[in-house]
């Protein structure tokens, strides 16, 4: 499954970049994230409990590795998640473009693979769920950005 999109933050590119690297911020922004810690320079481990409608159960242990960091412009990442319902693996790229001093446009692209039971029962809604989670995550991130700027 491919996820593609854009999102505009009303904040300088450096601010957005910083927040994107901060596990304490991400834990609040990522949908269902319960724990996220840096375990290496660009590696994070975490626990997420994703809830979309009836799907509230699965706790996923996730591992994210950031790569090819070009601050404050772009990075790639590799993600793995596991739960009793199955696994997910994916790669993604995030690019930040400074529209002006106070506006940053984010382009994101991800290729996500789902495996196990969840792949066998979730197809009708997968597309929609991915879109929803991306939107929820970005909106939450935007709130963090705005809170940060308001301080």
């Amino acid at each position, binding site marked *: 499954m491919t996820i593609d999109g854009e999102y505009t933050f009303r904040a300088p590119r450096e601010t957005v970049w910083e927040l994107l690297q901060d596990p304490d911020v991400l834990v609040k922004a990522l949908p269902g994230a319960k724990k996220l810690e840096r375990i290496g320079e660009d590696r994070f481990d975490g626990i997420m409990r994703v809830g979309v*409608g*009836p*799907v509230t*159960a699965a706790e996923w242990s996730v591992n994210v590795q950031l790569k090819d960091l070009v601050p404050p412009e772009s990075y790639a990442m590799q993600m793995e998640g596991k739960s009793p319902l199955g696994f997910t693996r994916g790669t993604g790229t995030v690019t930040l473009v400074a529209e002006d001093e106070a506006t940053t446009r984010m382009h994101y692209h991800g290729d996500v693979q789902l495996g196990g039971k969840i792949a066998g*029962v979730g197809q009708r*809604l997968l597309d*929609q*769920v991915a879109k929803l989670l991306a939107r929820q995550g970005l909106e939450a991130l935007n709130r963090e950005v705005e809170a940060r700027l308001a301080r």
Partner: protein
Amino acid sequence: MKPAPFEYHRPGTTDEAVTLLAEHGWEAKLLAGGQSLIPAMNFRLAQPGVLIDLNNVEELAYIRDGDVGLHIGAMTRQRSAERSELVAARAPLVHEALPFVAHPQIRSRGTIGGSIAHADPASELPAVTLALEARFRLRSPRGARSVSADEFFTGLFGTALESDELLAEIEIPPPADGAGWGFAEISRRHGDYGLAGLAAAVQLDGDGKCSKARLALLSVGDGPVLATSAAETLLGAEPSEEAIRAAANAAAHRDIDPPSDIHASAAYRRRLVEVLTRRVLPRAFDRARGVDLKPITHEA
């Protein structure tokens, strides 16, 4: 396919139910007909810690006529509503759409409230209630509030319900003079969720011009989708064949961003929406003119 352990409550009244709900918050799930929740639990997609069974709450199962329209208690079985003469007379679009919800066996258990609260984007009742501008009465220990269908559906399985709230009643305004309606969907098998579907509520003014059009589509977005630009093409115009064609085009190409899945590509869904709009609207406008026809059957 056995559910994970859960705590089970079987309250007898709405008050008891919302008290329990407030106590357990998001950990709890209300159990209505169980036709969506139980499969999700058996797949372990849902693992609620607490189950609050509403099947003993008799006060939530009723169909009553009132000044502002029809009142349907949330625990009314879909099958009872389908067979109710009151519903057929006062909410004919609901009557027309209900046979498309699953199979008789499932409708005998499944509830009107459960279907709406569940807010599956492919469900018929959310689209129908959206087209009809229904209102939903929500109850919590904090009191009651009424929410319009436009505000209630907030996206994929998303509703305005708070963690301590229960959907108590659905209120459907009575058909106005010059009102017409129509429902159709295309599904793989009889009783399946539609690949696409349309619930239409329209109105003609004294000059035979379209004064209102609410076209709610199902299975083409993250919830029921109002085809607003299609409606705009109709408003103020006589619903001629060309007008309907234009509306169908707008619905298929402007109003939706349909998903592709293993059953239907986005392009196929757009086609179905176009065809459904072309087929449903003439019937809805005929009804608005007082020419009633048989409902569109599965062969749509």
